[in-house]
């Protein structure tokens, strides 16, 4: 059974290899190959999950040693896998949600002539992410980590003919590189401290090492997590990453990529437990990002960018929970899983809306779509209720636990974190309600297509065949919203089920926490105020957020052109000036630095070099004059030399 772990990674990797190397003759079946291999990986994951459940709680970790990658004395790099409860959770999330997104992409990318390549990249993404979570040492994890970065680059820039997409891909890649430096430094520090990369020895010995070293490693791991999980200060790539096709956004935001940072911190829990300062830094990053993403999400009119802000914010919740230590790890992962369901659902819903609206992303040009896209409306709506934490749905259970854990972290810190998470919940409710109202309710603000026949064919309730969709997409005269094909709606429906029931299912008897406990440990949080009160406050804040959004957008017509807005709104529209900050501080600073370096190079370094050369040249120019070709001047030197020699001889003799 344990030998199947490698196949988990190998299946999507094979898909990527076949699809990317197979050439055009696979164009007609490529998407099915990709989806089938992703599904195969999921089935394999389920089989392993079943096997794991059959083992004793203490003996659930499965290991597979494939071969030794770097067989050097004192530097052992293994291709070895470790599948424990934490990895298993990720494997099921990645392959499950990933397969649904593959399925969805079949419909979404139907008209893209590079669809085969797209599926190849999707498979590569899954393979890299799976490698990341089943690796049993940090070196192999790093390999998967870089693979995820590569795949995200390829997918964000998939529509490379658009300069904005190409730029966004580069931006994501470069910002991620900054984080990757953190991971590589952390791994080097681990090697110098422990002499190994394997999870077992490193995490086992983490408590014995000095706190300073653990803090350094922890902070470097945090930097890495910030890059991959789009946390402040490395968050700027996430919004631009929306340039990629929508299924990619769903994949990045729900199942892969941004979850890697949370995985890294949870996996390295022992290191963070031994470094309270690093934990504090994690918590601060999480709390800041939580509010940052939420504020950005409030101001965006682009539906995908609003969702991107919400991802940033939700990942902030997870990072915050992971920074709280053993009381938070399990809740971070639980929120990650439920978030995987509803965020994938929301993104696929957004993609479905765009699919029907000629790729329009401005929510101010939507409106009233619930009549035209009933399935999308319902699934998106359930995802919406889940993400705001509506009682009974997934997000409620997982987010409420994080808020409790935040309050329970003790002292002033607990009150601050609790307030921040509560506030975040309120803002989440506000901006998601805003997205919901702008998209599906109110008056329609788009100009319908002029042809009445076509408009009639997209009445709700009438099943639209893929052929009909292609007709619509070919016609660019104006949007005529319609429900998406089955291959797109089915994944949305499945994810909506997850959004509704996953949280409750996990919470019954704390089964999710118990499941993860052998890996992450668990301390029961004891908040200073009783749990029902916290839950009550959460619900109140949530309803307040919804109410404010309703008062602002639900009652009157929404202007198609965005109003100027307050200073904060304008800043939030520009991602709270993150790019401006980066531009002024990093780009300009870098330019000034290079300019001054060039100046130093020109004056000082070149000065020394050129000066040496010039003085040697001048000297030799003067020496050259001695060789003037006049026999008598040579004779003078001969006489002079002889005279000196004789004088010297006589002098020596005299002495």
């Amino acid at each position, binding site marked *: 059974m344990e030998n199947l772990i490698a196949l988990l990674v190998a299946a999507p990797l094979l898909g990527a290899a076949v699809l990317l190397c197979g050439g055009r003759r696979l164009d007609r079946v490529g998407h099915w190959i990709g989806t089938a291999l992703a599904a195969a990986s999921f089935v394999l994951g389920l089989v392993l999950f079943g096997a794991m459940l059959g083992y004793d709680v203490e003996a659930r970790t499965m290991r597979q040693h494939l071969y030794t990658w770097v067989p050097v004395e004192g530097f052992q790099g293994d291709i070895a896998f470790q599948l424990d409860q934490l990895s298993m959770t990720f494997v099921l999330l990645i392959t499950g949600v990933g397969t649904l997104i593959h399925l969805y992409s079949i419909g979404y990318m139907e008209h893209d002539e590079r669809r085969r390549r797209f599926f190849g990249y999707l498979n590569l993404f899954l393979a890299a992410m799976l490698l990341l979570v089943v690796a049993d040492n940090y070196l192999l994890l790093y390999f998967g980590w870089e693979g995820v970065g590569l795949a995200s680059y390829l997918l964000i820039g998939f529509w490379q003919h658009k300069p904005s997409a190409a730029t966004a891909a580069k931006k994501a890649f470069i910002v991620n590189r900054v984080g990757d430096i953190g991971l590589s430094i952390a791994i080097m520090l681990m090697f110098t401290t422990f002499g190994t990369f394997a999870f077992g020895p490193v995490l086992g010995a983490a408590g014995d090492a000095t706190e300073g070293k653990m803090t350094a490693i922890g902070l470097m791991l945090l930097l890495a997590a910030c890059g991959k999980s789009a946390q402040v200060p490395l968050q700027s790539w996430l919004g631009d990453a929306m340039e990629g096709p929508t299924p990619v956004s769903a994949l990045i935001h729900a199942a892969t990529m941004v979850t890697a940072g949370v995985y890294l911190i949870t996996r390295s829990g022992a290191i963070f437990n031994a470094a309270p300062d690093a934990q504090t830094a994690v918590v601060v990053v999480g709390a800041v990002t939580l509010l940052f993403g939420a504020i950005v999400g409030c101001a965006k009119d682009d539906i995908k960018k609003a969702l991107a802000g919400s991802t940033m914010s939700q990942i902030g919740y997870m990072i915050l929970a992971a920074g709280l230590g053993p009381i938070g790890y399990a809740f971070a992962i639980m929120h990650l899983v439920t978030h995987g369901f509803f965020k994938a659902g929301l993104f696929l819903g957004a993609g479905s809306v765009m699919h029907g609206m000629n790729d329009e992303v401005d929510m101010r040009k939507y409106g009233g779509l619930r009549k035209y896209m009933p399935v999308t409306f319902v699934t998106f709506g359930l995802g919406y209720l889940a993400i705001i934490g509506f009682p009974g749905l997934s997000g409620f259970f997982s987010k409420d636990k994080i808020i409790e854990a935040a309050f329970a972290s003790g002292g002033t810190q607990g009150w601050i974190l609790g307030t921040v998470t509560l506030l975040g919940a309120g803002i989440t409710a506000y901006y998601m309600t805003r997205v919901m109202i702008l998209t599906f309710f109110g008056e329609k603000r788009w100009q319908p297509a002029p042809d009445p026949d076509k408009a009639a064919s997209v009445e709700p309730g009438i099943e639209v065949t893929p052929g009909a969709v292609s007709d619509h997409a070919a016609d660019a005269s104006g949007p005529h919203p319609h429900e998406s094909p089955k291959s797109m709606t089915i994944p949305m429906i499945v994810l909506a089920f997850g959004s509704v029931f996953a949280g409750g299912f996990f919470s019954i008897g704390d089964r999710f926490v118990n499941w993860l406990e052998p890996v992450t440990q668990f301390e029961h949080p004891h908040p200073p105020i009783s749990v029902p009160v916290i839950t009550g406050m959460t619900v109140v804040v949530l309803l307040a957020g919804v109410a404010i959004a309703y008062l602002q957008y639900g009652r009157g017509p929404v202007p198609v052109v965005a109003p100027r807005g307050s200073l904060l709104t304008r800043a939030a529209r520009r991602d709270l000036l993150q790019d401006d900050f980066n531009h002024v501080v990093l780009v300009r600073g870098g330019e000034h630095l290079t300019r001054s370096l060039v100046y130093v190079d020109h004056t000082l370094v070149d000065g020394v070099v050129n000066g040496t050369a010039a003085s040697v040249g001048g000297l030799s120019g003067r020496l050259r004059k001695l060789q003037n070709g*006049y*026999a*008598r001047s040579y004779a*003078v030197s001969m*006489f002079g030399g002889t005279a000196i020699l004789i004088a010297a001889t006589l002098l020596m003799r005299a002495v």
Partner: protein
Amino acid sequence: MNPVNYLYLAALLFTIGAAGVLIRRNAIVVFMCVELMLNACNLAFVAFSRMHGNLDGQIIAFFTMVVAAAEVVVGLAIIVSLFRSRHSASVDDASLMKL
């Protein structure tokens, strides 16, 4: 007669020869000055031979004469061919150096 006087004469002759080599431009004159220096040396050798009472200096003087004779042959040949090619016997004109 005190042999030291011969040494003074030799020194005088040598100095005249050296000055001629350094100052004059005509190759023939320079050449003659070189011969003058050689003969000044010969005179000094012979005088030293006399002073020390052995024949070493005289033998060296003969060697010098032989070498000088060979030198004259080669030197005059060079000067003649130089004159033929440049129509001048000036030693300065023989310089091909760029300055």
